[in-house]
């Protein structure tokens, strides 16, 4: 989980200041990072100047011309509902970790990017082949999409295939984990400690039993001196 969070934070370490300027579309770029503890998705969503008003009204639910933190969270959750992620064929829930919104001025000029960080916990570190599927269903009537995988930070995870639909709303990543046993050395540490304790105690077991029996006999004799 730590590595997953680190991966997510890394993705946000370099905050976009200004990207493209598509005018009448809602550019939604997704970057997927794989780590043994799961996947993180960074979404950079830039409404062009001519659709910015429409996107702004979607976020500004109460229509007061301001985007409140609650409205930001509500919009981020809406986007989250429109994103699906599957790992090895199983639906994997995404959690929102970062939500950054541009100012109204930036958005109205078509230069403001909404940045969302999403993470999904999954055991991606198990040795062997895996598949991850990502789909973005957010505002398809406005959206143009990009989706890319980042080179995994952990060298044991190797991406072996990338498939997308022609619009880049959907991506399927095939990857392989070259790890013989990812349970780590700690279970064997327990066995080691247990064996050492037993090996030390075993030679003492018989004298200890004899001592305890002799003590019990002495107690019985003390209670009944005529037996």
């Amino acid at each position, binding site marked *: 989980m730590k590595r997953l969070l680190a991966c997510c934070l*890394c*993705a946000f*370490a*370099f*905050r*976009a*200041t*200004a*990207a*493209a*300027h*598509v*005018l*009448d*579309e809602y*550019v939604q*770029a997704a*970057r997927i990072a794989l780590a043994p503890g799961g996947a993180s998705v960074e979404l950079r969503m830039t409404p062009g100047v*001519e659709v910015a008003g429409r996107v702004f009204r979607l976020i500004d639910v109460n229509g007061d011309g301001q985007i409140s933190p609650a409205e930001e969270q509500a919009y981020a959750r809406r986007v989250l509902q429109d994103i699906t992620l599957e790992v090895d064929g199983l639906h994997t829930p995404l959690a929102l970790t970062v939500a950054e919104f541009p100012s109204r001025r930036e958005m109205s*000029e*078509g*230069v403001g*990017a909404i940045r969302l960080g999403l993470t999904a916990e999954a055991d991606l570190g198990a040795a062997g082949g895996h598949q991850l599927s990502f789909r973005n269903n957010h505002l398809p009537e406005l959206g*143009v*999409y*990009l989706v*890319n*995988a*980042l*080179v*995994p*930070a*952990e*060298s*044991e995870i190797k*991406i072996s295939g*990338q498939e*997308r*639909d*022609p*619009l*880049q709303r959907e991506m399927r990543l095939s990857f392989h984990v070259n*790890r*013989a*046993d*990812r349970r*780590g*050395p700690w279970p*064997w*540490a327990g*066995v*080691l400690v247990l*064996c*050492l304790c*037993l*090996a030390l105690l*075993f*030679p003492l077991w*018989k004298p200890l039993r004899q001592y305890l029996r002799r003590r019990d006999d002495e107690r019985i004799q003390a209670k009944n001196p005529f037996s």
Partner: protein
Amino acid sequence: MKRESVSAGLYLLALLSAGWMLLPAAKHQPQKIDTTPAPALRVEPAKEGDVTGKTVAAAKAFLATLDDARRAKVSLAFNGEQKTRWSNFPAGMYPRNGLRWGDLSAAQREAALKLLATTLSRQGLQKVKEIMEGDEVLKTSESGRGGRAGGPNFGRDEYYLAFLGTPSLTEPWLIQFGGHHLAINVTIVGKSNVLTPSLPAAQPAIYKLNGETVRPLGRENDKSFALINSLDAAQQKQAILNYQMNDLVLGPGEDGKTIQPEGIKASALNAAQQQMLLDLAHEWVGILNGEAAAAKMAEIKANLPETWFAWSGPTTNGSAAYFRIQGPTLLIEYSPQRLRGGSGLDTNHIHTIYRDPTNDYGERLVKR
């Protein structure tokens, strides 16, 4: 005797557990290869007669034309936020720091041009001028929204020059020059000059100036189509992506990221095709002065077997098509954009980006 045997057995089991524990521990050490920060590069000291020396002299000559207020405005911290504050947006939409071209006197412009001519190649400076002139054309065109009150500012005056750090033969410093569709970042550390990240783009990508047709990114376009059409069917099958590309993947603000490469590996190209790929990459690398560009091209050539070429779109020259060249120390993207109301990507509006994932802003030279 029986007791000793059992104890010995337990000790043996403990020993085996210890061994088993240590063996996977050794295996689990992650081998970070692709994303590990590359080691620092050795910095060769600059001399007054080499390119860095001439660039430092030209930068000091430019500074000497300024009064104190302007000198303060053009001089920014090397390790400050300004380093990554560049964009393809017009200055009206994305304010720049530094000195505005339109605010410079004739003598100051001449000194600034001399500086650019020293640090860039002849063809690099020509490209920069053509991009700026293109914006002047855009300013007066319908799509440029030029002249409208409150609209973004366009034109050759809306470009900004800044120095990050102090011009020096020994200490790192950076020349930043840019505006709409242009971001030039030249980091200078000793004898080394680094052009990444930089963003040469164009709108219009073809226009007339003094009766001559100008295409700021024309060679890039033509060489890329020549390369994709030199591939046989099997090679094209590998190189051509099955999806549309509407934008740069690693444009402004996307520093420090490495995407999974796609397309065809240069090792699957024949010698002539490999040379075409190098020539194409040189269109970006060669914006910088000859000495630095030659060093960078040698590095790209050495990494050629691990370099990828990907294409998205039609293969007929004149069509709008995206391509990407990606290697261990190189990322180039060429991305036609949509125009307002247009039904598809347009050849008259191109964004490109040139990066080195290991050495943007001379990162490997600076971390001595």
